[in-house]
């Protein structure tokens, strides 16, 4: 707990010199009044109580735009996360009024954190030609997609494409847990239930260890960040024992080591214009040396030869606009306005929009129901986009 929680918010903020940049760039401030620098100043001056009581920290998108532009790297989203814990435990506030879908998904995650719950996931989606097992060194961590199917459609296709990709490359059974539980991301960031998060993390670690996993591949931006940064932060040696890879990473490495190539059997005459939406968890939430944003672009440049033209949106990489909803928090007309802006940019950039976070996918797709003019954009997950264009190179020299 100490590792993810600092009871004295003030200590974390002392460096701030009130330049006000964060309030200028804050994505939320584009649609409502929101001034992180003012909140910071209030806390520094000793009005923390007032800030917590007002509940305004439930509004933050935890998109981390403010961190990217802060000269002294004050991590406001982290403050929000801890403040939410305090608001819940000291001020008796509840997030119910802010959480989307009335909190069903966070409730599910919470139930999964209980020691006596052992999920029994539906495995029907697993394609016939892919072999899975419950022990082995490569794990495909599916994430909560099967539960999101409760209200959203077609999410299995992300899991299917990802598993197919991994299986094609590895050519050996991939670990997929039938009793997989949530990584805890939403509980951690959105709900401020840090203890529940730790429970989930411990339960997960146990499962990884028992299955003898070495590499964890996931297609979800949030799971990736949670394992890679937050789990590594809580558990010593998590880094050494497990290698966490986002599917982009995974494909990139295999491509660079010439295990796969990109092909398009049905290349069309006309170039298809497409663009990419960077999820915050893969752009602003990772250490500087993590190049996923660039790696994915390198792959996309290669797609030029496959009849696809990659275009950037007006805001991209670290500056990309937020999909509007984080950790199932605050889906409202303001967040829709943010999403609308994003989709407008996407529309100018191409007919396909690729993302690598299932949640961005859900939220942006959801907006299409409200606006006919946006319905023409095809929103795809990275894995769905490349699945038919990956060819495994068979090396003859290897006898296996």
């Amino acid at each position, binding site marked *: 707990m100490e590792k993810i929680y600092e009871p004295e918010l003030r200590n974390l903020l002392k460096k701030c010199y009130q330049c006000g940049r964060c309030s200028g760039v804050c994505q939320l401030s584009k649609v409502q009044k929101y001034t992180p620098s003012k909140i910071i100043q209030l806390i520094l001056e000793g009005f923390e109580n007032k800030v917590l009581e007002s509940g305004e920290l439930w509004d933050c998108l935890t998109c981390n735009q403010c961190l990217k532009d802060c000269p002294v790297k004050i991590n406001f989203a982290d403050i929000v996360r801890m403040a939410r814990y305090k608001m819940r435990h000291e001020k008796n506030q509840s997030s119910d009024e802010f959480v989307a879908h009335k909190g069903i998904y966070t409730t*599910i995650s919470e139930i999964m954190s209980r020691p006596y*719950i052992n999920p029994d996931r539906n495995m029907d989606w697993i394609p016939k030609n892919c072999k899975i097992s419950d022990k082995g060194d490569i794990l495909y961590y599916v994430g909560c997609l099967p*539960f999101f199917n409760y209200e959203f459609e077609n999410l299995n296709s992300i899991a299917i494409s990802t598993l197919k990709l991994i299986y094609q490359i590895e050519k050996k059974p991939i670990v997929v847990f039938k009793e997989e539980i949530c990584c805890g991301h939403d509980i951690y960031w959105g709900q401020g239930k840090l203890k529940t998060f730790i429970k989930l993390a411990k339960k997960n670690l146990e499962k990884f260890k028992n299955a003898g996993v070495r590499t964890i591949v996931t297609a979800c931006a949030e799971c990736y960040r949670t394992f890679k940064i937050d789990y590594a932060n809580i558990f010593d040696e998590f880094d050494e024992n497990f290698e966490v890879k986002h599917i982009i990473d995974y494909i990139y490495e295999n491509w660079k080591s010439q295990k796969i190539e990109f092909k398009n059997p049905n290349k069309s005459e006309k170039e298809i214009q497409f663009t990419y939406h960077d999820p915050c968890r893969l752009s602003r939430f990772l250490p500087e040396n993590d190049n996923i944003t660039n790696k994915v672009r390198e792959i996309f440049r290669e797609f030029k030869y496959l009849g696809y033209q990659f275009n950037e949106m007006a805001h991209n990489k670290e500056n990309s606009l937020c999909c509007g909803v984080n950790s199932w928090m605050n889906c409202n007309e303001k967040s829709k306005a943010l999403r609308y802006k994003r989709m407008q940019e996407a529309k100018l950039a191409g007919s396909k929009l690729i993302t690598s976070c299932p949640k961005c996918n859900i939220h942006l797709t959801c907006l299409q129901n409200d606006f006919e003019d946006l319905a023409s954009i095809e929103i795809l997950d990275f894995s769905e986009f490349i699945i038919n264009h990956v060819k495994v190179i068979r090396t003859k020299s290897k006898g296996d």
Partner: protein
Amino acid sequence: MFCCNWCSYAGADLAGVSRFQYPPNMRIIRVMCSGRVDPVFVMKALKEGADGVLVTGCHIGDCHYISGNEYAKERFERLHKIVIKQLGINEKRVRLEWVSASEGKRFADLITEFTNQIKELGPLKVI
């Protein structure tokens, strides 16, 4: 247990005034219609420690709001298939039933049966 206001709650009343005995270990929450019972309520109840959740409404076709119970039925099917089952929770713990205002006896029987079933399954905590 969630009861809709128009039929099932009246059914519960009838069970009461007719002095039918039923197990005391359940709590009735009155809602206006079974369609009002968001599956989230059920999940929250389970999270907060309920061992089973019974939702009752008017018989199909009798709903005071015309089709609230049909809506409830649809939602519960999804909830069962996608959430309850995948969480590894025994599906018998969550049930949707129709009880009309005149079925006081059935109300009591239903509760007895449901309670016994849950007792058999034991508390949710130990599975």
